[in-house]
């Protein structure tokens, strides 16, 4: 389906936007902004998919990423010691490892892109991508998607079990430490290491009511 020069311009614009937004994810100094630059990059990729004729997939990508980036922002703020995402911080660390990994990945993907023989079958204008997708989902790829669906369901049930108010050792609002057989040892001193937000195991510390 060739759509003329406007589609080509749009492709380059969205492609550039996706790359720049992806770069900005790591240049920005705030976790919330990083999450939403990533969202912008995904939206650009989604629009490219729409240009390629896979409109359903592109729109579903945008739909899912909106929710997921918000949840990611909330989780980042929750787990990082950066109050509400307002404190400026640097988003990168382990510079050398990251640079090496990035260069290797780029080389690999670029090599694949240059060497591989991509199919070049223009899709007929009358094709219905959504119907084809549906037939694929319920036909040849049913096992894959059903397995993924059941795995997701198991994950959701596990998450609900984790978040439920009543646990094995009592109500969540009255403290979550397991009862000790021996008298509780004195609570060990907190170490202010980067991402550790759990108390030391076995400490008889009770959360406030």
């Amino acid at each position, binding site marked *: 389906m060739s759509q003329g020069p406007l589609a080509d311009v749009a492709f380059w614009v969205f492609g550039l936007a996706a790359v720049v937004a992806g770069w900005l994810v790591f240049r920005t100094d705030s976790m919330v902004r990083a999450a939403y630059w990533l969202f912008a990059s995904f939206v650009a990729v989604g629009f490219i998919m729409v240009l390629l004729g896979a*409109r359903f997939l592109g729109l579903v990508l945008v739909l899912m990423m909106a929710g997921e980036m918000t949840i990611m922002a909330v989780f980042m703020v929750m787990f990082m010691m950066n109050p*509400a995402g307002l404190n400026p911080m640097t988003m990168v660390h382990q510079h050398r490892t990251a640079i090496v990994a990035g260069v290797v990945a780029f080389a690999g993907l670029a090599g694949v892109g240059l060497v591989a023989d991509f199919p070049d079958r223009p899709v007929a204008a009358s094709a219905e991508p959504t119907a084809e997708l549906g037939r694929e989902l319920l036909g040849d790829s049913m096992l894959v998607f059903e397995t993924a669906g059941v795995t997701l369901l198991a994950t959701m049930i596990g998450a609900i079990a984790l978040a439920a108010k009543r646990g094995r050792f009592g109500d969540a609002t009255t403290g979550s430490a397991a009862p000790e057989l021996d008298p509780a040892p004195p609570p060990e001193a907190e170490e202010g290491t980067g991402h550790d937000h759990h108390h030391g195991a076995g400490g008889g510390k009770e959360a406030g009511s």
Partner: protein
Amino acid sequence: MSWSAPLPALALVGAVLTAGAGALAMLDHLVGARTAGRPVRLLAALGQPVARSALLLLTRRATTPRTDAAAWALAPAVLVGMAAAAVAAVPWDRGVAVADVDDGIVLVGAAFAVVMVGVYLHGWAANSPLPLHGGYRFVALALSYEMPLALVLIAAALPAESLSIGAIVESQAGTWNVVRQPLGLPLYLVAGAGLAFWGPLNVPDAGDLGGGTAAEVSGPARLAWAGAQGAVLTAVAVVGAGVFLGGWHGPLLPGAAWTALKALALLALLAGARHRLARVRLERFVVLAWTVLIPLALVDVFVSGALAL
């Protein structure tokens, strides 16, 4: 004239959103005046949105220190853009549509999902505690109504065997979806009110947060935010009119008039709900959404699917 060409499309969508936001303001004023026991003056109500907009345009725009200026300024634009995308997918009459794409329902779902991003950024970017609180509250609300919204829209697409909103309206030639899927429209309206944070679900801009995400907004930015909320609610009403109330089907009047009337009816319903229902307790509503509304939406999908098979 093809409504898909850029200029007519912009004109149509712009006119619909402006008219909808204005109509919402008027309806809200009328219902509010009647509820409050004030004398109801129709002409005054017609001029209210214009007068208020003029006042807001003349007020200065104050800022807080070190805001995320781009996000704060763009948040209303995100809402309006997404409302425009949703309105664009709805046909007004047979063949009169800006973009009656094959995946209209998915387009609407994606547009409504990105609204969550806009409201959250509006709260976070102000760099102030009360708007921040409002933004995070809205995320909790949004994640709760998202599932029922998606499910009832999918259920409405099942009888039509197509995701295009035009096909869904065509499939309602005999009976409207509100009749054969009774759970659909109430769930959709609850989710839609939550999406536009309107009335009983006005959680991010609540009075108990001193105005919430709109607490630090003044002048033209305040007008933009109120207009954006009106635009989103208009989009909810227009999509609801097409998907559940039969779109352009109706005797005597031309199809576009029927679509507009049905959308206005939904707007009036939502405007009335604001003055009748108290604001929800967020925790209670989240529990309700996950334990009652999602199962009801699933029942809706199963029943529609069973009927369609």
